[in-house]
């Protein structure tokens, strides 16, 4: 079976970008949420 390195390389780059952009923003969102909770607690 023929394996198209060019197409699958482009696809793989896209997949890696997608995984990174799921993982990192979730991590950063959690940090922002934590900061906000701390801010709310110190306000009250």
């Amino acid at each position, binding site marked *: 079976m*023929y394996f*198209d390195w*060019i*197409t*699958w390389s*482009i*696809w793989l*780059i*896209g*997949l890696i*970008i*997608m995984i*990174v*952009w*799921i993982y*990192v*923003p979730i991590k*950063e*969102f959690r940090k*922002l949420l934590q900061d*906000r909770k701390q801010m709310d607690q110190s306000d009250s």
Partner: protein
Amino acid sequence: MAVIDIIIVVAFLVITFLVGSFFYKWVGDPDDFYVAGRKLTPFILAAVITATNVNLYSFVGQAGIAYQHGISILWQTWTGNMALVFSGLFIIPIMRRLRIRTVPEFLEKRYNRKVRLLVGFLWVFRLAFWLGVVLYTAVVAAQAITGIESYVFWIFAFAVVAIIYTMLGGMWSVAFTDVMQFVFMLGGALVVLPLSMAAVGWMPGLIEKLPEFSLTLVRETGTYNWKFILAIFLLGIEWASVDQGLLQRAFGAESTRTVAKGMVLAGIVTTPFALLWNLPGLAASVLYPGLENPDQAIPMLLSKMVPPVILGFVVCGLISSQLSTISGNLNGVATLFTNDIYENLKKRKATNKEVLFIARLMTFLVGLFMIFFAFFIPMMGGAVEAYLTIIGIMDMPLFIVGIFYGLLWKKATSAGAILGYLSGALAGVIGKFVYMFDFNLTTFISAGVALLVLPIVSYFTKSESEVKLNSVWKAKTTSEEEEKAGQIYNIIPKSNRGKLSLTVYLSGVLIFIGGVISGSSGWPFASLVAVVGMVIYFAGGYLKAVND
């Protein structure tokens, strides 16, 4: 489209709405609403910028051009990405240091309040017009892809959801829904690429079945030839330096260096991403040759090749691309009106509560205007052409006045800026509507007139105060915020690593331009050299953003 796909799309819209609305509680003051409290990190910023730049035009319009004219249209996205890197490294850090929210606000800092009000007022209309065009093209494309002809359903899908969550959570909602939408967009494109390439016999099949010019990146002749690449690169720099929808997100960055990193990342990420929608466009030209309307290429490919359920997710990706553009620009107009016009015209200082109310009201009203306008575009005809004309007439003089002279020439005066901007725009109007010049020439004329008039008027009028000029000129080197944090981003590098990065970056520029120009003679390696230059450019840009 099957019932299951419609359920997936509706579920996606509900989730988007809930995610967007979640951030209502996060908006405590106008800065939260306008620029997400200036807390966006590099990855979030990059996703947000990419999601705003990639819309249905990319998936349908640009892929349609690839279908008709070949792969050279890729340069529209690639040079735009290069412009993002340029602007992120050299222009936006200055504006971020000034802690502004809009481009007109920068104009007040550099010139005076009159310049700010004039440009702010004109730009509210410019962005509202753009929103109408975006909504209309989204509805038309969605109708073609899904077969659901209901105009009202699609207006609901695209507009109402975006209006409500943008109104509630401002830039916080825009940012996090953008991240989610970016992932969906990418996911959709990852499905379509292998399906379409497999159908044409992968890359060898594509090369064999397409004429040679279709796969030439830098072409000697044709509409999208080497001259187009240079022209669109220059226009990209203008766009990346003054576009409110884009800049407002960048102003949300947590620091000056984050702006540079985020914009460089956004530019680099979208570069391979662009292949994900242009290659299917090429594949469609092999699979469905001779379509009368090339914009039908991708909708046809999706409806014929993507199985149910997966189609639902791909359509969510396409809707995502448009929702992010709409929400970002809605937020942009609300910010422009509230920040540059309302707060300036009021005699007393408005309270935070009042400003937030007006910003939300404006989001709602502009949203209604967008819906109203979208209904009328079919009767107007040529809306996209009209939009391109507006870019040429309104954006280019702003770049000359605000960025070119505003940042480089201290003697540029407020009167020069106003007359330079108005005469440039007027010359563009005359060129377009009296002499019927095309988009390229109109842009050139409006820029040229602004370029000439501003220095002449400035020569006869009084310069701005030294205090005002110094605050802008100081922002070219540092800010109190950076000094306090001990993290200074040097636009002109001081360390050896920074200087080396800049050298790599500039080498990339030269190699890229050399490659493009050598395409004029049909040199077979021109495309390769231009791409190598672009890669070096990105590498140098990234190194410069993280070093020094």
